[in-house]
């Protein structure tokens, strides 16, 4: 895979037996199409799509958001990851739904919780959170709120919501 897509792969990371390929965002669709169609790779199974928010982290210079694609090669019984870094100002990436039908709901989940937009997705709407929830709750800067519990010493006070 390194020899085939040498220019588009930024770095390769090995961690406890799992191999991750950090690639350029623009090359994702092309690489995945080749992986799917080429018999030497034969990657037919997109297991999962997740995302990471590197907000306020020392690695954030490469891009705040990271989308992680979890692939599994059934013929070789081998699992690997493709990671893409996206900029904070424009978190957009090509959708994999034309290649993998499994990407449909997985990309909707990533959009719902992290706010990454997938271009070319047939129906990019909320899938998990309540319809009236605004914002993307798994982002690090999502505001946390809680009510002050009512005990005997403050039971007469109105419920206070701290934001």
């Amino acid at each position, binding site marked *: 895979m390194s020899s085939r897509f040498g220019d588009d792969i930024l770095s390769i990371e090995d961690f406890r037996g799992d191999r991750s390929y950090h690639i350029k965002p623009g090359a994702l669709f092309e690489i995945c199409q080749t992986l799917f169609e080429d018999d030497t790779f034969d990657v037919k199974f997109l297991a999962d799509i997740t995302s990471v928010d590197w907000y306020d982290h020392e690695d954030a210079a490469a891009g705040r958001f990271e989308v992680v694609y979890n692939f599994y090669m059934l013929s070789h019984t081998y699992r690997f990851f493709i990671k893409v870094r996206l900029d904070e100002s424009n978190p957009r990436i090509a959708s994999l739904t034309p290649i993998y039908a499994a990407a449909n709901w997985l990309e909707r989940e990533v959009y719902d919780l992290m706010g990454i937009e997938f271009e070319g997705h047939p129906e990019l709407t909320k899938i*998990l*959170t*309540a*319809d009236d*929830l605004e914002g993307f*709750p798994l982002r690090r800067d*999502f505001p*946390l*709120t*809680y*009510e002050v*519990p009512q005990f005997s010493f403050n039971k007469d006070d109105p419920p206070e919501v701290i934001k």
Partner: protein
Amino acid sequence: MGVIKKLPIYTEKLPGGGLILTSLETVINQAQAKSLWYLLFGTACCAIELMCTGASRYDFDRLGMIFRATPRQADLIIAAGTITKKMAPRLRRLYDQMAEPRRVIAMGGCTIKGGPFYYDSYSVEKGIDHIVPVDMYIPGCPPRPESLLEGCIHLQEKIKKQKLSDWQEK
């Protein structure tokens, strides 16, 4: 008199006579208390305890409680487990589909006040009493089957004490 002595305790006896009288209120309350068919509404780990209570070791059936899979046949919802904000309208819809008289048991900390998700949660409803009126709260995380049984017995006691004159549509 031998027959009368063997009759259940709620039968009211006149002293020295063969007549057995009871009130309509007592009959209705007994019928409601002893056949609480509950709607299965298990959404989290409390449902495991609910299943355990329904199985042979604790035997919910001896209280007259049988699970129903449809709200049309149920008298009681045992809300067992975390209710998310997305699930809340569904719970209200199921409650609205039940026939009167209907009752709700809030089982576990999540249904009472959000439980461990009270702080910093964007998705969990902080107590189902925001959605439906609750008759009995059973604390615990999750409550043991003994707690659930005791809560149901308390609910039966509550039903037996109700007055027909107080009845109103919730």
